[in-house]
Every structure is written in C-alpha cells, then in structure tokens.
C-alpha cells in the first residue's frame, strides 16, 4: 500500500528468535515446544530462591552464527538484569544484554538490492507464557491466569534493525530474509506460527525530505508476515491521519488486532520504561576467544543471498525473480541445481520445483530431472508433467516418470494427430471459428479448451494455440 503523496514511513524492527538449542539458556531443562505445561522446569528456570544461572555454550555459538551471518562485529559482552514485574517472568527480572551486546553493527542485504542496518543482536532469556482466563483475555480484566513456565529461560537472540525500512513490503522482505538466514545457519527454526520468531515494529512517519524522525509507536503482536504488512500500513495511515488533523503522536506500545485490522493503544511508554538495568552479578562476562569466533565465521553455510545468486546464474534468470527467492526460501535451490546437473532444463525445473511439488511432498532428484526433461522435449505437456510429479510425490518420491506417464495414458500427441484434433474442433464450431477469424481473440481459449477435452488433456496448449494461429493466417 502506498502512503499518501508527500509522506514517508520510517520503520525499525525488533525480531526475537528462539535459538534451537537442546537445553535452555541457563539450565539443563529441554528447550522444547509443545510439551505438557510446566514439565520442562527446574529450580533455575523457575527462579526458585537460591538458584543460579549457568550460561549455555551452544546458545552462545548459535548467537554468534546469527551475528556472523549478519556481518556483525562479535564482541566481549556482559549480561544485565532488566527489572519488571510480570507473572510469567519467574525472577521478576529478565537476564538480557544491555550496553555490551555480543553482536553489533551488522547489516542485511535484501533480494531487491536494498540494505537494512542491524544495530545489535543480543542474547536474552524468554519468559513463560500466560493464559488469561475470563474478560477480554487480557491480564487487566481476567478472572484468573494460568502460567506455563516451559518457555521460561529458552534462549533468544533479539535482532534490532536500524530505522532503515521505508515500506511494509520491505519490512516483510527483511523478516523473510532474516528467517531464511536463521534457518540456514541452524540457529532457529524461524517458525512465526509457533512463536519461535516474533516481530515488534517501531513505526513512525514524516514528511518526505524531513531529516528528523517522527515520534514512534511500538506495534506488538505481529504473528505472521501478513500481520506485519497490514499492521505497518495501518499504523502509518493512522499516524498520518492524526498528524494531518493537527494532532501529535504519543510514544506508546500498540497491539495489532488481526480481527479488527487495527492497532490499539497499550501502556504508555514513559510509565513502564525504567527497567533499572544493572550488571547481572550471577554471571561473568562472556568473552569468546578469537579462535572460536573465527571458527564460527568459517563454518557458516552459504547464505540465502549467495544461494540466490548461484541459482540465478546457473539457470540464466534474474536473481530478483520471485521463483528464485521462493526456491531459496523453501530450501529447494540445491534440488533444482542437482536436477540441472542431471540434465534438466533450468527454467522448467525451477518452475516445477517451486510450483508443482507439493510443499509437504518429495520427489527424488533423478525422477524429477527425467520428468522435466520429458516436458522440455515435448513428450509431456505441462499439465501432464505436473500430474506425473504429483504421482511421484504420492508414491514417496521414487519411480519411473515414463512408466507413470504411460500408465496414465499420457503420450504427447504427434503433430499430425494434434492438427487433426484442432481441425475437428474447428469444423464442429463454424460460427465461433468465423468469430475468431474475424479478430475476436477471446474465443481462442474456448478452442484450446475444446481440443484439451477431445484429447483428454494430452494436447500441449501452446502447440494448439500455434496451430490455431496458423489456420487463421491461412484463412
């Protein structure tokens, strides 16, 4: 959605990623989604009196991978306590990093060529989960609350972008790219729907050309990319409307209401902002050795941007092509490249891999390459190729595409048979044919459809169109 002429969005994102460690950040409880409530708990993550935190080395390793992938400086860091009361926070303070975070000053290059700065990516512990019962479901008017501490102490990395984002679509691209990166590095499973990746958006607007930043609102409760885009668009429009009316934006937290399609004011920031940070005395400074940092950087897998480039160059398309972005986003690029190596046409392989293999299905690369090659050679129509892939996937991925095609009665019609089928359809519909010859292209689709029907789908639509045009040109 475009903003009204003369206005500009300024947006920064805070993305919380749960790290895919075996155990929690400061204890040996399992880091596991979906367990029975309050089963993955111990004195440490329940914050029982006398318990002490011990930092999880694997969490540090994964946090450094994120930092390395975002081209951050990885530094000696310290932990602080962020003090505030909330029932799902067992100690009533959160152990986080404050003025000395582990990763600083990185950036993320997006598929469209733009760059978003990353100010920091620091380690902190997650809270438990509250379920407020009664009233609106908010804590303020609930009759009672249930708390599950399984998530308390799960390691998080909070990635804070600069105020560099200028559109909701760019915000979406940033989060999607970040998600690919944390998944590619093995740092997180990046599942927004399970809350393992959570996004808060700092949104402000200003007149184009104004060098000053407007007052921002922090929009929370963005549980999907769709919510993110809608919420930013809505919030920007709301702020512009307020400003146009001569009003002022108030620094506050706002919650996105997906059902109502709007943001609602939460607590005002000035009341809640004093977290009384101070150095966490129960932990020592985290000072990874240069060797450790170097080994993390060296072991980084190819990142999405490089993978897009490799894929696009190999098959001769532009790396900003949606199918390229999707292929890498869904981890299909290696599969396509393997099919190409096995002789498949790159563009067809990309299209079939992205669009026609069921998302939860699998096809062996050899069978896939063979199917794509049959299509490229004209032995199968696109429709038939898709059907063969479906069958392959249903059969668990393995199989002989030629045999499957034969079993389905698929054989590409020879040029003669196809021409005969076209002529039969023309002969059967003289009035429509006259229309078409007279210049009404709209009926072309009807002719193609009729040929498909009479050949039971074995005709190649493109070939039918070609023959129709030849017949018309011939008068």
């Amino acid at each position, binding site marked *: 959605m475009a903003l009204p002429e003369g206005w500009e969005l300024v947006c920064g994102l805070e993305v919380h990623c749960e790290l895919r460690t075996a155990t929690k950040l400061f204890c040996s409880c399992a880091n596991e989604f979906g367990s029975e409530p309050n089963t993955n708990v111990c004195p440490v993550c329940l914050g029982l009196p006398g318990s002490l935190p011990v930092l999880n080395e694997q969490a540090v390793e994964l946090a450094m991978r994120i930092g390395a992938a975002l081209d951050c400086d990885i530094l000696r860091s310290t932990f602080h306590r962020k003090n505030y009361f909330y029932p799902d926070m067992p100690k009533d*303070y959160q152990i986080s990093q404050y003025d000395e975070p582990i990763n600083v000053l990185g950036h993320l290059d997006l598929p469209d060529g733009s760059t978003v700065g990353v100010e920091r990516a620091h380690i902190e512990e997650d809270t438990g989960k509250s379920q407020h019962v009664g009233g609106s479901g908010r804590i303020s008017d609930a009759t009672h609350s249930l708390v599950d501490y399984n998530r308390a102490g799960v390691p998080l990395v909070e990635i804070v972008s600069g105020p560099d984002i200028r559109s909701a679509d760019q915000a979406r691209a940033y989060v999607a790219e970040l998600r690919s990166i944390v998944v590619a590095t093995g740092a997180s499973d990046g599942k927004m729907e399970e809350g393992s990746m959570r996004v808060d958006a700092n949104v402000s607007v200003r007149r184009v050309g104004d060098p000053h930043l407007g007052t921002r609102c922090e929009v929370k409760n963005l549980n999907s990319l769709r919510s993110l885009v809608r919420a930013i668009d809505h919030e920007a429009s709301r702020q512009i409307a307020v400003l146009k009316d001569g009003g002022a934006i108030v620094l506050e937290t706002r919650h996105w209401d997906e059902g109502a399609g709007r943001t609602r004011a939460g607590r005002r920031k000035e009341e809640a902002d004093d977290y009384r940070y101070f150095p966490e005395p129960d932990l020592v400074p985290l000072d990874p050795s240069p060797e450790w940092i170097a080994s993390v950087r060296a072991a980084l897998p190819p990142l999405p941007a490089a993978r897009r480039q490799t894929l696009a160059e190999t098959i001769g398309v532009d790396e900003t092509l949606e199918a390229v972005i999707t292929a890498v986003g869904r981890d299909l690029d290696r599969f396509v490249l393997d099919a190409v190596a096995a002789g498949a046409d790159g563009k067809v392989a990309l299209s079939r891999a992205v669009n026609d293999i069921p998302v939860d299905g699998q096809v062996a690369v050899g069978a896939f390459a063979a199917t794509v090659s049959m299509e490229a050679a004209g032995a199968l129509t696109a429709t038939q190729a898709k059907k063969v892939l479906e069958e392959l996937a249903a059969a668990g991925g393995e199989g002989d595409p030629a045999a499957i095609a034969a079993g389905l009665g698929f054989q590409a019609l020879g040029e003669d048979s196809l021409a005969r089928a076209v002529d039969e359809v023309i002969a059967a519909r003289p009035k429509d044919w006259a229309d078409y010859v007279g210049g009404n292209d709209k009926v072309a689709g009807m002719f193609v459809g009729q040929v498909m029907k009479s050949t039971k789908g074995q005709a190649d639509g493109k070939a039918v169109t070609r023959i129709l045009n030849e017949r018309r040109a011939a008068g």
Partner: protein
Amino acid sequence: MSAAASGARTASEVAAAVATGQVSAAAVLEEHLARIDATEAEIHAFNHVMVDEARATAQAVDEAVASGSDPGRLAGVTVALKDNMCTRGTPTTCSSRILVGWRPPYDATVVTRLAAAGAVVIGKTNLDEFAMGSSTENSAFGPSRNPHDPSKVPGGSSGGSAAAVAAGYAAVALGSDTGGSIRQPAALCGVVGVKPTYGGVSRYGLIAFASSLDQIGPFALTVEDAALILEVIGGHDPADSTSIDQPAPDLRGGLGRGVDGVRVGLVRELMGPGIAPDVAQRVTEAAEALEKEGARIEEVSLPSFTYGLSAYYLIAPAECSSNMARYDGVRYGLRAEAPGITEMYKATRAEGFGPEVKRRIMLGTYALSAGYYDAYYGKALKVRTLILSDFERAYADVDVLMSPTSPTVAFDLGAKTADPMTMYLNDVCTIPSNLAGHPAISVPFGGGEGGLPVGVQLLGPALSEPLLFQVAAAVERAATAVFEGRPL
C-alpha cells in the same frame, strides 16, 4: 561412651572419634540435642531443629562406621545451617514471613558437600530477615540472644549460627557474609568466623541478598575446625558461574607454621575514632603477641575505607531490590489475596517483608532508577574500585592486614534498632573485604567491656586463605596463652 567422656570437643576431634568408633554419631548428636533442650528457649538460635532428620543421618554414619566404609571427613560432626541455605524438603525461611511454608525441592551445594562428608545437619538457624541486619533482631520470628549474656545481641545477620556454636548446640555452623554477617557475630559470640574469597564457596542454593557480595563460610570453636569445614565445602562448583575454577586449598597443613617473618599491617582507619577502646586495646595486644612470635607489625593506611560503608549501602540494596523481586506471591511462599495482580503483589510484599527489607528495597530501587544510576550506583562501583586499589597498595607492603572485627562488643537488644544508621556502622570494619571479594577471618581474642568477647579480624588478598589461617592459628595460640583458655 559420650563425646565429652571421650575427650572429643572440637569438630576435628569428634570426626576422628566417630570414624574410629570411639564414640557414636548418635551419642554426639544427643549431647547437642540435650543442650538445645536446656537453653534454646532463651537463646533462640534456631528457626527449625531437624531432630528426626539428624537422628537418621547420625544412624547412617554409625552404620557406615560399623560396616567399615569411609564415613567421611566430618563423620558425626553436627552442623547448624543459617536458614537462607536451601535444604531439600525442609523449611527454608530466611526468617521472613514471605517464605513461610516453602520447602525447597533441592539442596544447596554446601549442604550436598556436608552430607557427602558425613556431617549431621542439626537445624536451620535464625537470621536477620534475608540476612539484612547486624543483630538478628530483624528476624520475623524474634531475635536470637548472645549465649555469653542473653541480654545482648549475638550480632548478625548470621546471629543464630554464631550463637548455636557458642552455646554448644552444634560443633560448627555455616553462615553467609555479605558485609560482615559471619565475622561480626563470630566476634560478638566469641567463636571463629570466616568469609572466604568471593567464589571460593559455591553460592548455589544460598538465597541471595546481594549476589556480588554474598559468600558462605564457617563458624567454629577453633581455627582448625573452620579450616576443616572450608576444605569440605570449598572448591569449584559448575552450578555457580562465579565459582573459582580451583579445588579447595589445603588449609590445615600450615596451621602450625607460625608467623616468623610474616608482615602484618594494622589498619589505621579502623583503630581510631568509632572503635571502642576496649576493642582497640585487644587488637593491639594481639598484634604485640604476633610480634613476639616473629611477625613484623606496621601501621598502614587505606583511606578509601572511609567510603566503604556508603558504597556498600548503595550496592547491596541495589542488588537486593532485584533479588527480592521474585517474592511476589505468584509461585511460592506467602500470597495475600487481592482483586488484581498488582494489588496482590503489593499486599503480599507489604505483609511478607519486614521494615528493614522494605527499606533496602526502596534504597536500591532508587539507586538504580533512571537519572540516579550514575550518581548513586555508578559512583558506588567507583568506590569499590578505589577500595580494591587501596588493598592492592597495602598488600605490596604487608602480607595480611589486621583490625577489629566489630567496633564494639555485643550490645543490648534494642539498643540500635531505632536508628538504622547506628546499626549500619557495625559493619564498618568488615565491609571492605566484601567489596573487594577478599577473604577475612575473625578470631576471638579475650574479653572487652563486661567480659564480652572481642574478635580480631585478619584480612588478606584474594585466595590468601592458607596464609590467613596460618596467622589466625597463631592469634588463637596467643589468645590461649594470654587468657589461659578460651573465653567461653
């Protein structure tokens, strides 16, 4: 045979007698329980005497001895634990209403180590609520009293542990020392008290007051017993990130070495105004006694000590304000019923915490607040650095420092409760070691006004425990020679 009849008096003697079958752990325990029965109603050293658990442990020790297996270095030694150390399944209250009814599901590391060594935990001792105080009068369950004179305080905050050892309720005890809470009550009760190097003893399972200052240490009748306990409870613990990655040092091996050539510095700032003359007199005598044994005594100045108290009373409350936050009524302990979550928090904490804890939460919250942090907490951290550099300069010239442990001998109950500042001044001699993370020992050295015990404090740099214990043993021998026996 009874322990007394066997001649075993100290923990070291009891452990040897029990291990060799001269006396049973059960008999040792019953003698302690009998003393508790006789005078505990007046002294109130304990919040909870663990009669059944202690008898079961003693029996297990005796069975181990009978079966010929190793009963451990502390076989049959009775230990009293300050009630801020977690004991699995046994109430742990910190002498606060807010923890009434809570039973920890786990043992503190020190408790696990004591049990593995065959010690018999006899009970949980009274303290100033959450270890905040210097007289044990801030307990929600009433004050403890000094066994030397029940009209006097035993000191604090580990007053119950000091009193338990002084009264013979347990051979040894553990306390925690954040600003002097082991050494000051040890001095006032006439027993040995040790604050180890920060990180020397695991804090896992010690309920925090001020985490960067808290340290567990022993109370004992003798320097040797204190060394033995520290050897058992000390050493690296992976469950405490601030634990020093070293095994517990040998402390008993050097106790007989004497002090020939050891350089001892008397701290000028802790020998003048504010220190009672009777106390200063005993410290001077102790220094003279060491000099006779070959030590070189000199006066040294550590000017930043003057600011130690102020810095401490910002840093400790700041950490306290955060550590006390979890007592919110949501998960354990006291919960006051109230209509909403915020009201419940307020009602629970208003009802559950005593006035001194509330005072420190407020001080600490203020010191950490935006706009005040630099002026208060930030400045206090700078003083902490200054104190460290003063210590460093001093230790370039001397091996250990010496001072009074407490400015006065034990005072009357109620004498200082009206004015918190007067009470805070009790900690002036002990606080610098906590701010620096250094070890210090209080050793009894005769009596002061009213015949009440005086403690001499020995301070050393980080990890200097072997030398400190060596000097402490010399002070102890001198005291025995000068006063013809121990004060108790």
